[in-house]
């Protein structure tokens, strides 16, 4: 019998402890927030100790998006306590609820909603306990700084009220009524709690873990995914000072040493000692379009509305996006230790629970023999090599039991072996009616998978290199409305006649997986570029043309706000400069984001620079305005980098873009002069998340501005100097 079952029986026996909130009867339609439904015990989320310590548990992970601070703000307001009084524990398979992946801009929607709900009920429960203790009705109690105060001056603190299992109660669907008094945390730009350590050299990352007796390992990757290891002479490597072990299992080759740089040097020697057969197994095509269109696809219509319209003017265009990198600044890292048949893995994975499942399969052990603890890493922006390096560390911990094994990838590993953002092709055709409105819309998006996350051992890179390799499971597209490669493939505009088809390609030429925004980046780039083309064809202002096709008042408001803040109507074009606009509602159900940008184009050099950006965002109720601004600002600048510079290149044998020289990203010299983020707060509305809202609109707005500046319609990403010069 598990501890939980035991408690449940205890609760069933003690009728007095069942939850009986003094609140209106809840309607049967009310449902618990998703994460709370999965883990309904209040004390799984909030624990109060007799010493007044309040610990908050979330299954989500800090990725640099500021989630820790925002979640504490939510709980602080529900408990009417200062955020500084709360301690937060994030994703840990031994301690926190399982909230799946920290991804999809879902953390506030999932964990924020769950914690708000749970904290409200904890407050109600504490109020009942305080009422009983103080002999006064709960409604008459004041609550401040973790202490209930009765009208007669009697006091009861949280720590006094919780002496045992008082909070081991199932959450109920009816939300607690709002706490009396003013909220103090939500809506404030509380400084992020993780930043002071990050700017002072405090231990902030998994890379900074220094465990007693820790050893260091490096993995020698094959030259390509298809390469085979024909021979390796490990004698010389074993003779190097500090080398403790060389591990070989099939094509998985690694070295463990007593010092980090000794491991680096040993891995370099091991790489030279390995003889690989590197077949020319990659297809070579003249461009991204030819490459993507050559792959087998499974078409599925995700929208069929009305009928084809013949009357009007017909337009069509094709847009492409190359393979692109998450390209974390810090190569992925993990520490793993095997002690008495139990593994502990410190990881910056976005999903410690799914990773644990995959590792259990890989190592051939039960899930409960593995504990995965999230520790921050360098920003990941989706499924980067975090899970892969955790698998490396776990395999090496198995090969070297007892001592903690730290593995960090080298730069060429990260660039060459992370799962890439998918190359995509989007074909659009539309008919412009005589009334200047879109009469008909046909859209086809062709894309390899955007989600090959673990789950399964076969999703872990090293597992596919072992002598008895695991096979990656067949990737599946995520269903609409969120979608994956077809995310945002359905325009958010009023289109009476439309068809949208997702041509899912289960097999990718190169391994691909989730990258910030998934398909939304390319789909919004395509849709919003084409909207610009149609607006020009209709001789309409691009902002007015969008408004003509929008119904949702919240969408209309962000579009108008971004345009106004940019100074769209009064814009005066300077030589070599132009302006562009774009809008999307992320996943068609999350945040609204509109932006107007100005670019400067030097046609002689091909250099495009974004000069200024005005954006507007509606992400529902705002918990931390500066946190939202930081995410949107970062999203815009990162998307500008993807859009202006980035593409993975490869030849018939191998990936060629393996460092910052061959895969450059935006540097300070090319960043905008100004990026404004204007927020529309919707108190009382659900949290919509912000992390990925800007990626697609930023790309399209830049391309539209380039056209405005120099009449070049750039439909293939990136708009780098070579391509701009060629187009000129």
């Amino acid at each position, binding site marked *: 019998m598990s501890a939980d079952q035991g408690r449940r029986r205890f609760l069933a026996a003690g009728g007095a402890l069942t939850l009986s909130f003094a609140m209106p009867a809840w309607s049967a339609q009310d449902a618990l927030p998703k994460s709370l439904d999965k883990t309904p015990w209040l004390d799984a989320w909030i624990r109060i100790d007799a010493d007044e310590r309040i610990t908050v548990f979330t299954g989500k992970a800090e990725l640099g998006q500021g989630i820790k601070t925002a979640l504490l703000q939510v709980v602080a307001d529900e408990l009417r306590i200062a955020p500084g009084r709360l301690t937060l524990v994030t994703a840990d398979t031994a301690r926190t609820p399982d909230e799946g992946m920290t991804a999809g801009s879902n953390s506030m929607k999932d964990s924020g909603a769950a914690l708000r709900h749970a904290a409200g009920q904890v407050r109600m429960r504490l109020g009942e306990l305080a009422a009983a203790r103080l002999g006064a009705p709960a409604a008459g109690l004041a609550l401040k700084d973790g202490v209930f105060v009765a009208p007669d001056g009697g006091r009861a603190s949280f720590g006094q009220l919780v002496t045992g299992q008082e909070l081991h109660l199932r959450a109920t669907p009816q939300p607690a009524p709002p706490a009396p008094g003013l909220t103090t945390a939500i809506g404030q730009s509380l400084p992020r709690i993780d930043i002071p350590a990050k700017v002072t050299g405090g*231990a902030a990352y998994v890379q900074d873990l220094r465990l007693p007796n820790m050893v260091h390992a490096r993995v020698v990757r094959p030259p390509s995914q298809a390469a085979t290891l024909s021979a390796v002479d490990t004698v010389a490597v074993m003779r190097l000072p500090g080398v403790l072990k060389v591990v070989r299992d099939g094509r998985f080759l690694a070295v463990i040493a007593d010092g980090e740089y000794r491991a680096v040097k040993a891995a370099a020697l091991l790489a030279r000692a390995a003889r690989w057969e590197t077949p020319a197994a990659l297809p070579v095509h003249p461009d991204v379009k030819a490459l993507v269109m050559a792959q087998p696809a499974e078409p599925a219509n995700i929208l069929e509305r009305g009928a084809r319209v013949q009357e009007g003017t017909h337009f069509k265009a094709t847009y492409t996006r190359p393979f692109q990198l998450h390209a974390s600044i810090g190569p992925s890292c993990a520490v793993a230790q095997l002690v008495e048949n139990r593994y502990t893995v410190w990881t910056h994975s976005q999903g410690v629970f799914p990773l644990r499942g995959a590792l259990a399969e890989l190592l051939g052990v039960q899930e409960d023999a593995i504990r995965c603890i999230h520790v921050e890493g360098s920003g990941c922006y989706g499924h980067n090599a975090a899970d892969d390096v955790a698998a490396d560390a776990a395999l090496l911990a198995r090969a070297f039991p007892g001592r903690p094994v730290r593995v960090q990838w080298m730069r060429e590993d990260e660039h060459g072996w992370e799962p890439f953002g998918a190359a995509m092709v989007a074909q659009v055709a539309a008919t412009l009616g005589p009334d200047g409105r879109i009469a008909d819309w046909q859209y086809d998006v062709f894309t390899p998978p955007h989600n090959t996350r673990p789950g399964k051992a076969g999703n872990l890179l090293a597992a596919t290199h072992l002598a008895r390799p695991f096979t990656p499971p067949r990737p599946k597209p995520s269903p609409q409305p969120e979608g994956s490669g077809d995310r945002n493939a359905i325009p958010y505009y009023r289109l009476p006649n439309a068809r949208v088809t997702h041509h899912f390609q289960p097999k990718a030429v190169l391994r691909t997986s989730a990258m910030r925004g998934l398909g939304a980046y390319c789909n919004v780039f395509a849709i919003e570029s084409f909207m610009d083309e149609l607006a020009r064809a209709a001789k309409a202002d691009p902002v007015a043309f969008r408004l003509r096709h929008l119904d949702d008042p919240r969408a209309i408001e962000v579009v108008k706000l971004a345009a106004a803040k940019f100074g769209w109507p009064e814009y005066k074009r300077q030589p070599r400069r132009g302006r562009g606009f774009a809008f999307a509602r992320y996943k068609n159900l999350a945040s609204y984001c509109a932006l107007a940008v100005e670019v400067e184009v030097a046609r002689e050099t091909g250099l495009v620079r974004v000069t200024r950006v005005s954006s507007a965002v509606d992400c529902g109720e705002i918990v931390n305005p500066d946190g939202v601004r930081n995410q949107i*600002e970062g999203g815009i600048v990162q998307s500008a980098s993807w859009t202006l510079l980035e593409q993975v290149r490869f030849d018939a044998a191998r990936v060629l873009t393996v460092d910052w020289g061959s895969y450059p990203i935006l540097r*300070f010299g090319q960043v905008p002069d100004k990026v404004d983020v204007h927020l529309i707060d919707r108190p009382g509305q659900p949290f919509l998340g912000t992390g990925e809202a800007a990626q697609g609109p930023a790309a399209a707005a830049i391309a539209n501005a380039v056209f405005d500046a120099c009449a070049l319609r750039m439909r293939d990403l990136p708009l780098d100097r070579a391509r701009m010069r060629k187009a000129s």
Partner: protein
Amino acid sequence: MTTYRLQVNGKRHAVDTDPDTPLLYVLRNDLALNGAKFGCGLGQCGSCTVIMDGKPVMSCLVPVSSIGTRAVRTVEGLGGSDKPGVLQQAFIDEQAAQCGYCIAGMIMQASALLEKTPAPTDAQIRAHMSPNLCRCGTHMRILRAVRRAADVLVKGEKR
């Protein structure tokens, strides 16, 4: 293994290590300083930036045997989270970090600029910060933080 005597953040240390070990690994593993980060090992990203003899250097490229008597400064030398230095406080005030992995290198790069050029123009700041990469897109805030620190330092001198 050889013993090297290093001066880091004003303190003297004796370190036993291999001569070719880059300073970065000595700082992180022998002296347990987290600030300088491994980013590329190629001198392309600036995550490992420290100041040596007043100049910003990428510590992943500096073998420990080449340092000699030159004084090394890392982000830890500017202050701690209890008492942050002016630049660190400016980064906190501007909330100029997302994942933050590049930030210690950014701060040291900026520190080297402000020591030589106390009142830099915005263009000078951009040009000087160019060797350092940020992937989160925090550039606008980093530029504002450096500006803020420069302004604070200039005001402090005038007082």
